[in-house]
């Protein structure tokens, strides 16, 4: 790993370090400006000379095309995504953006880069797919009123997509709780509006309202916790807070403060008991947006949890962290079980996917618990630092590949929505007859979510289980080789989380398979026999998701290596 370079804003090295974010910023400006370009002129006062200044007036043909914003957003997000990939291929630099007074603002390293990859990838796919979901038509006299309405809102939708990506990447980079919350709120507000985007429909308005109210309460609680931490430590810098936690983190004030902050992130990952708004939000939002909530937004929440729990209040810092270990383990166990049981009973495929997303949050929290167990328990030592990296690798890989198959599943539903709704399981009926390839893609996504080899979901779930088991076993392997005698009860208790996880996978099999059964076995709904609406964009996105799901499943080595590198760079010490 190269040395950490400290860079002030807009000095040397700033542009190269922040290149993806700057691309997004430029894209956002372009999205605001370009659709407004027209033949507007400006008369120099006192003369008859009119200078063209291009803003307003009759718009040019190309800038008035309602399809323009979607292309701009897709190109911007894809460019940012490719830029991050290029940076990975060039080898990573570590850059810390500091203020002139030495305060740390943003840290760019492998860890944050992987999250940028997740965010930009998911949003690029979603915005590509949205072209077919929020359909627009060229201008002309034959455009109906609602179509015209849709056309005019295009720019809003895609600007929000880009600001969402920008906010998320700020969360990924932040080294200061305050900066982190700015990013979080930027992303949150964008998603509130995106969820409520179909505000004319009843479900759209309801889901947007619910999501906004619950979300803003969670943010408010988080901010309150933030203020308590500031009161206690006098700073919101991660570096300052982690030192303070190491010294005296067991007192009531910081613990309550951090607990409140966690509520904010718990809502984002939709962990029980903060998950209640999630199914409604997913069901009411357009499918690509729901897919973003289930992948990128969840990754952002998980990122916040990792930062708060492992960097700020790391277990090795103080005995107090043991409190969150048990607490988080319990939340993980409840979350995965609740999510799966609730998914069993839901007939709406989007709600089903929402609950499955809750279950997946549980698996990831279990992994996080396992990272927290290192060094704290005496049975887990020695090999433990490597074990923690392994679990973190698994967590990152799971978040990355989740984009492929979770978002992919939502995109398939998105095509069905354009066909007239996807709010009942029977909407998927006969998909195998209507569009065999789409049904096969959906089946691949489902068994990947369930964790069946040889799909990517299996590899990532296997890695999570392996990581947890590795933490649980700790050094026992080596000690057994030296003649030590142990019983299964000597394993760290996180092993039981792994057992719960495999049993939950088995429960989840039921509802994932049911989708397959409906698609391949049941007849289509009345009047929905024919092929689905065309749209090469969303199909391209689905194809990309299928390819990633299969390729990572059978040859995921390089992606694992990448995630491992990212996991190692989580903190300077690691």
């Amino acid at each position: 790993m190269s040395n950490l370079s400290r860079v002030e804003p807009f000095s040397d090295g700033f542009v190269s370090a922040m290149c993806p974010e700057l691309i997004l910023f430029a894209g956002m400006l372009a999205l605001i400006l370009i659709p407004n370009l027209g033949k507007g002129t400006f008369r120099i006062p006192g003369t008859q000379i009119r200078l063209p200044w291009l803003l307003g007036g009759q718009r040019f043909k190309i800038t008035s095309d309602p399809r323009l914003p979607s292309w701009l957003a897709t190109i911007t997000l894809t460019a940012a995504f490719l830029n991050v990939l290029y940076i990975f291929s060039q080898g990573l630099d570590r850059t810390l953006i500091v203020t002139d007074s030495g305060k740390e603002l943003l840290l760019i390293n492998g860890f944050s880069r992987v999250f940028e990859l997740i965010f930009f990838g998911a949003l690029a796919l979603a915005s590509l797919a949205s072209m077919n979901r929020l359909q627009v038509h060229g201008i002309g006299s034959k455009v109906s009123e609602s179509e015209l309405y849709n056309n005019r809102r295009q720019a809003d939708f895609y600007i929000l997509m880009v600001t969402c990506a920008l906010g998320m990447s700020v969360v990924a980079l932040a080294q200061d709780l305050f900066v982190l919350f700015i990013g979080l709120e930027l992303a949150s507000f964008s998603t509130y509006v995106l969820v409520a985007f179909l505000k004319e429909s009843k479900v759209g308005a309801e889901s947007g309202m619910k999501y906004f109210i619950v979300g803003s309460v969670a943010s408010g609680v988080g901010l309150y916790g933030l203020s308590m931490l500031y009161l206690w430590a006098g700073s919101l810098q991660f570096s300052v807070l982690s030192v303070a936690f190491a010294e005296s983190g067991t007192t009531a004030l910081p613990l309550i403060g951090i607990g409140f902050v966690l509520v904010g992130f718990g809502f984002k990952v939709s962990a029980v008991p903060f998950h209640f708004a999630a199914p409604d939000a997913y069901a009411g939002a357009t499918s690509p947006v729901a897919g973003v909530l289930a992948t990128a937004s969840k990754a952002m929440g998980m990122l916040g949890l990792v930062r708060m729990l492992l960097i700020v209040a790391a277990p090795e810092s103080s005995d107090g962290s043991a409190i969150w270990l048990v607490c988080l383990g319990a939340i993980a166990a409840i979350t995965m079980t609740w999510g799966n049981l609730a998914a069993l009973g839901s007939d709406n495929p989007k709600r089903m996917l929402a609950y499955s997303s809750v279950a997946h949050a549980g698996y990831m929290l279990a992994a996080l618990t396992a990272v927290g167990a290192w060094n704290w328990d005496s049975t887990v030592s020695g090999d433990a630092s490597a074990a923690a990296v392994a679990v973190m690798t698994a967590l990152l890989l799971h978040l990355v590949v989740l984009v492929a198959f979770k978002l992919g599943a939502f995109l398939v539903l998105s095509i069905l929505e354009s066909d007239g709704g996807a709010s009942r399981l029977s909407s998927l009926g006969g998909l195998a007859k209507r569009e065999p390839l789409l049904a096969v893609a959906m089946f691949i996504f489902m068994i990947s979510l369930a964790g069946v080899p040889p799909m990517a979901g299996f590899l990532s779930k296997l890695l999570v289980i392996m990581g947890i088991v590795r933490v649980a076993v700790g050094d026992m392997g080596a000690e057994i080789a030296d003649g030590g005698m142990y019983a299964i009860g000597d394993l760290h208790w996180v092993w039981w989380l792994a057992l719960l996880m495999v049993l939950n996978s088995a429960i989840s099999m039921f509802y994932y398979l049911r989708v397959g059964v409906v698609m391949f076995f049941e007849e289509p709904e009345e009047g929905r026999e024919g092929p689905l609406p065309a749209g090469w964009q969303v199909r391209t996105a689905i194809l990309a998701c299928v390819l990633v799901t299969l390729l990572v499943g059978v040859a995921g080595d390089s992606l694992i290596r990448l995630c491992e590198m990212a996991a190692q760079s989580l903190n300077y010490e690691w």
Partner: protein
Amino acid sequence: MQDWISLPLVGFPLIASVILLAFVSRADAKMRERLVGPVRMACLVFSLVLLMVTTGMFFQYFGDISWEGISFNSYVFYKQYSWIESLGIHWTVGLDALSFPMVWLTTFLLPVTIIATWNEKNGAMYFPILLAMGGALIGVFVALDLFMFYVFWELTLIPMFFLILVWGGADRKYASQKFFIYTFTASVVMLLGLITLYFFQDPGNPLDYAGTMTGRSFDIPSITQYAFAENSDGWYLGANIQKVLFAMLMLGFLVKLPAVPFHTWLPDAHVQAPTGGSMLLAGVMLKMGAYGMFRLPLSLFPHALEYFQLVLMTIGMISLVWGAIVCLGQTNLKKMVAYSSVSHMGVILIGIATMQPMGWAAALFMMFAHGIISPMLFAVCGAFKHHYHSMEIGAMRGMAKHSPWIATSMMFSWMASLGLPLLAGFVAELMMLIALWYFLVAEGWSVFWMVGPALVLAVTAAYYLWSMQRTIFEGGDETQPPESLHGEPVPDLASPEKLAMLILAAFTILFGVMPWIGLDMMHDWTKQIFEGLIMPILGDFNGGV
């Protein structure tokens, strides 16, 4: 040496079936009808190629490989390629006298299944799925890497799920989901056991996998070797952990086998599955459970095996007796045959639990013999269903007069299954009885354990003969064809079905008259494992036959 396994035996059928399926799925319904012939022929030819490869292996065509005298934990046709380096996962394939009979059996059953179900509906999709099934099954038997083993283990579920779901009977939705969830649950528990075992290796041991994140490997031969070295000084991993891991692994295999009380998925799956699915399910897929037991828990944890001996013996006895008694009460022909499979799998468990070389050889030969006989049973059931549109035992009487081919095949396969001398099943059952007797006397167990097998011999004969009496003979000349035919003439086997029956019958006789063709290598394998593993670790505990 050239790699005769990875591409020819595993990759080729999987890739060919994916290409065929992709090709067929783009065709419309009319085109699909026209494609059935070529696709079926292609699948038959491909599966015959597989059979030629494995048969060539047997006759040492691909090099001077002797199937006897392969010492414990060494493999022929062994090849290793790196796959997911960071976790110590390799693509490792190899064969020994344990896996080779199973691989040959799979390649033998594939063409026979295709022939026996020559006229299955929607054939253009059906035959490639059978081919994929074959590739996945072979993958399970040749895998020498825990990860690869698990991947293929689960991969077999997907084609079978679709076979039952799309081509199955009236209640196929319920049966296919039950089948998938039941076996999946057991195998994820097994997976956790495998992972825990993986991490209990000392990092750097058995081999130094420096390039990996974990410092450990999934390599079955080296784990087995290491476990053997550790077991020699006592319980490898310690008594408690070894027992728990043994139980976790066995759970996955017992459900697959299946043994009572984990057997309830089997009758449902069989009754609803199409004939071809049933043939492969009973013929090979059940054997995956027994194969897995020999490959992993028995080879890794002999101490735990000794500890759980009584439990295994009890489960085996209960499967044997319960399966047979339930058969008596069945009115559905296919369900009866399915329960008879449960009963026969009990024989395998008892053979294992005797911990005698002959008992293990009996179990191995039972896997093989049942793998030839049970497809024939299900082919007969399929023909019965196909021609009489009913599965009920009483639906057709006096079959000997109306359809002599079905009657003859049924009689032959029923006799083979109940253990008629000179047919393959008899050899395995006889060996099991001898091993059990020897074991009971040598170990001083109560001879009342013999009551179970003795009882089952009678009960098996009873349910088979009774069902034959009700279908083949009863009624005489006056019998009318069943109402489900609506007055159509009574059909008999079609020519492809006749051919398949003849092939299966011929091999049943072949392995009954000359069992040593397969038995020699199996007996040699058990001899090697007892000399190489069981005796050095558990001591010369009762001589053994």
